[in-house]
């Protein structure tokens, strides 16, 4: 397995994420029905369609441009909380990617952490608040363990696994953000849809890269 990736590989990662979300959007809406308004699957689907359109339109301008445009498009396309949050994540990836020509695992980790950081700055949620951050903060921590010897696909898989464990852990959390917040303890026992979709997104990144 190669120890570095090209910026262009981000397009494959995005396609992997889109495929993963498409396969799971029903489940995401069902999770949101339990503790929210039932539209999270649709919101993620719309977001991924916007991403694919951005790939279509801007791939000749390079992956950095694709990520920036995809972020903006996702912000416009997906309703509710998902659009702005996921959009800022993608725009963060684009900004993090910068003018890099080749990325080893620590460099890739830095890019994804920049995306997570960008979302976090808008999110205002902390670990334990039962939001997307409960998948992404553990993923960021896992990314911090990157070494130049690690294969990027391996790194992303670890991050995705950490995110999945984080999403699973949201079942024990009362909600502090978003619509579920108003449910108080009634949200207990249900995994957070946003955290679940972030774990899927990262898993899709890993699968896209591995493909």
């Amino acid at each position, binding site marked *: 397995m190669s120890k570095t990736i090209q910026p262009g590989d981000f397009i494959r990662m995005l396609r992997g994420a889109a495929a993963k979300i498409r396969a799971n959007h029903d489940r995401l809406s069902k999770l949101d029905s339990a503790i929210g308004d039932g539209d999270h699957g649709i919101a993620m689907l719309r977001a991924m369609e916007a991403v694919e359109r951005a790939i279509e339109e801007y791939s000749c301008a390079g992956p950095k441009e694709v990520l920036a445009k995809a972020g903006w498009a996702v912000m416009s*396309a997906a309703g509710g909380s998902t*659009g702005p949050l996921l959009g800022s994540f993608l725009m963060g990836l684009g900004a993090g990617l910068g003018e890099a020509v080749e990325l080893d695992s620590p460099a890739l980790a830095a890019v994804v952490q920049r995306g997570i950081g960008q979302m976090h700055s808008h999110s205002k949620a902390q670990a334990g608040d039962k939001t997307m951050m409960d998948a992404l903060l553990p993923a960021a921590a896992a990314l911090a363990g990157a070494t130049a010897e690690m294969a990027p696909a391996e790194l992303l898989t670890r991050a995705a696994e950490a995110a999945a464990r984080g999403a699973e852990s949201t079942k024990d959390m009362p909600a502090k953000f978003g619509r579920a917040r108003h*449910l108080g303890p009634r949200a207990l026992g249900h995994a957070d849809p946003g955290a679940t979709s972030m774990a899927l997104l990262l898993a899709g990144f890993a699968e896209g890269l591995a493909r």
Partner: protein
Amino acid sequence: MGMKKFINDRSRLTQELLEGFAAAHSDLVSVSPQRLVTRKVPKSPDKVALVTLGGAGHEPALSGFVGEGMLDISVVGDIFAAPGPPPVFAALRQAQRPAGALFVVLNHAGDVLSADMAMQMAEAEGLKVRKILTHEDIAAGPDAPVTDRRGLVGCIPLYKIAGAAAEAGRSLEEVHALAERFNNRMATLAVAMKAATHPATGATLFELADDQMEIGMGQHGEAGTGPCKIRSADETAALMMERLVNAIQAKAGDRLMVILNGAGATTLMELYIVFRGVKKYLDGLGIEIVASRVGELLTVQEMAGFQMFAAQMDDELLELWKAPCNTPSLVVR
């Protein structure tokens, strides 16, 4: 499950709603492809503009209040979903003018997220904008943290008051200060009786047993203080108004604005009967109703229930409330 609504394509609801809205009010408003609802006859640029954002599905709110004396631009999201930051930023840009713009945001997670990002972009471009956040829901208690206090129907009288001040040529600082004064003196409490259907997903927003109502429920079925047995109109009126009076610290001699905002399927007949109960209750406390509104301003589809709104008024706020306006859903002569 057959959803009983007159619609065509579930995925095009907002689009078609806006087309119908623009056609029905072609003398007053236009709708752009980005879903910015704007005044047909723009306000002069030496007057402060008013911009707001919010999801569709709450008709006539919010776009029904675009027009002379109220809003300049309303940015429309999907059903119950905030529009994204790009169209909101576009609206702030479009509203740009020497006098500046007041940006009214209702406290709902998605709205705040979009608004904050759009504000960042606006500030980066040096636009003259001031934001105001409505958060007058007292379901979680009047002293609950701002994050727990939703923006409900109170945005509408706030548009009216700020809009009148803008129309009168007041500066952005003055318009903002007046709006904040009103914002700090208002409170809303909701009650739900029957659920609504999400017109895009077909899902029922919540469940309530046949003999139950729930006080404090939000406008998307967010939980309130838990279900309770249905009370009479008078009991409900007193129960809710007592909490509002406490929240805005109203006492004998004070002058209030009272709004009963129907959620959708609660009849005007019921609302007037509840208003009678509110009046009786306030009369008993020696508190006067100097401004009132009974009807549907901000709905939640065909939900039964209403939002009860109260605000402390003074001469200046009252005068602004009574100033003329001309919008699809509110006209004052």
